[in-house]
Each structure stands twice: as structure tokens, then as C-alpha cells.
């Protein structure tokens, strides 16, 4: 430690003198690196894709075709009490799928596949997608 500070003092005192690398602990390291350059380059971070990348967020119906014939699927997005279609803030679907679902429900109703004012009792026990708590 004292030797290092002393050498620094000398350098400060005689700046015009050519600075020759001295065999101190600091200098030995610099000597080594000057001879072997690839070592420094190996020390750099390797370029790779973010390993903590999360999968892209998708809505429930991503990559699922919505059909007016699939009444059970459509019934999951209507109220069991009134048969009304749930809004986007309730279903959590993306814009495109919400539109598809509501269009399909309206089609099914007019074509005689699905009821307008109620939900088919067979489908009452289906898993709750929309996460609404109904009074029992």
C-alpha cells in the first residue's frame, strides 16, 4: 500500500519522466492484459435473448375459433340470470374476440340455437370465466 502511494507521489513529482510500468501489483495486471488481448474481450457480456422474457399476453380465446353452433362456449359469456352478453371489462377478451363472441351470440339467438332471455340450465355448472360472484 505504502509502496503504491509512494510510486504515485513520484509520478506526480516528475510528470515529464517517461512512465515505465513498474513491477507493482497494479502494474503486473496491466502488463499481462497488454500481452493477451482476447482475455479482455471474453470478459464482455455475451449477447443473448432476455432469459426472463415472459410469453406474450393473450386473452382466453386466443387461437380458438368462435362459432355460432358452439352454444356451450357462447353461454359462458352471458349472464345466467338475464341472458345478457357481458361487456369487455367483465369477460377480459381482446377487442377482436369480444366482437366475434357478441356477433356469434346474436346470430345463434336469431337462428334458434340459443335462448335470448336465459342461459341453458345444462350449462349452468360450467367453469366461470368471467369471474363474477353471483348471489346464491
Amino acid at each position: 500500500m505504502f509502496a503504491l502511494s509512494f510510486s504515485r507521489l513520484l509520478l506526480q513529482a516528475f510528470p515529464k519522466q517517461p512512465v515505465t510500468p513498474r513491477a507493482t501489483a497494479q502494474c503486473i495486471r496491466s502488463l499481462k492484459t497488454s500481452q493477451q488481448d482476447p482475455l479482455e474481450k471474453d470478459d464482455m457480456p455475451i449477447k443473448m435473448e432476455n432469459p426472463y422474457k415472459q410469453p406474450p399476453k393473450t386473452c382466453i380465446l386466443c387461437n380458438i375459433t368462435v362459432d355460432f353452433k358452439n352454444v356451450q362456449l357462447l353461454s359462458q359469456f352471458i349472464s345466467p340470470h338475464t341472458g345478457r352478453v357481458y361487456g369487455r371489462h367483465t369477460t377480459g377478451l381482446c377487442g377482436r374476440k369480444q366482437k366475434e363472441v357478441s356477433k356469434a351470440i346474436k346470430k345463434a339467438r336469431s337462428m334458434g340455437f340459443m335462448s335470448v332471455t336465459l342461459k341453458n340450465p345444462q350449462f349452468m355448472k360450467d367453469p366461470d370465466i368471467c369471474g363474477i360472484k353471483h348471489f346464491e
Partner: protein
Amino acid sequence: MPRYELSVILKAMRRPETAAVLRRTVETLFERGAVVRGLENLGERRLPYNISKHNCLHTHGGYFSVDFHASPKILSGLLDHLERDIDVLRPTVLKKDVEVSEAQCCGLQNEKAKSNVTSR
């Protein structure tokens, strides 16, 4: 020729009578120059609501779907013919769209970003 789907609800009848109605329907399609691709039986079920048609109230019906290619000109004539058929409760002709590519599906994140930008 564009591709259509006829989804029809028939009166709840016994098998030979249902077969006769379907035969009639498909023959009508052939007469009008349609190419029938396939016929599907979606089952006989209880109707979601009572349908009163041809002076009769129906509670059960058989659901069938006919896939066909046809010229758009015959559609109105075809629907008119089916409406007059006593055994057919509800005929509907839909155009079958080409399936949208699923690669674009679900830009939930993009949508949220867009809504944030517009709200600001």
C-alpha cells in the same frame, strides 16, 4: 362460386320423415344448380324458445347443416321455398367466410398500449 351454409331446424319427426325432408331440400338445391359439399346432423334437441310456425307451436326440433357452393342469385328463391315447407321451422343461409389468419390474434398488450396513449 361462393360457399354457403344452410343451417335448418326441422320439426321433431321420426327418422324416415326427417330423411324425406332432407332429401327434398337437397334435391331443391341440386335443381337450382348448387353443389352440395356435405350434410351434418347437429342432433335433435329442445328448442331454446318455442317456435310457432305454420300454425303450430314447436318445442323440439332437429338441427341440420348443409354445406354448399352456389350462385348468389338462387338464395332468395331457395329461402322462399324453404319458408313454405311445413316441416322446416327455421331456415338460415349464411356465407362461409375464409378463416382469418390466427397469427394476428391477440394484441392484448398492443391494445393496452394504444388505449394508454389515446387516454393521455
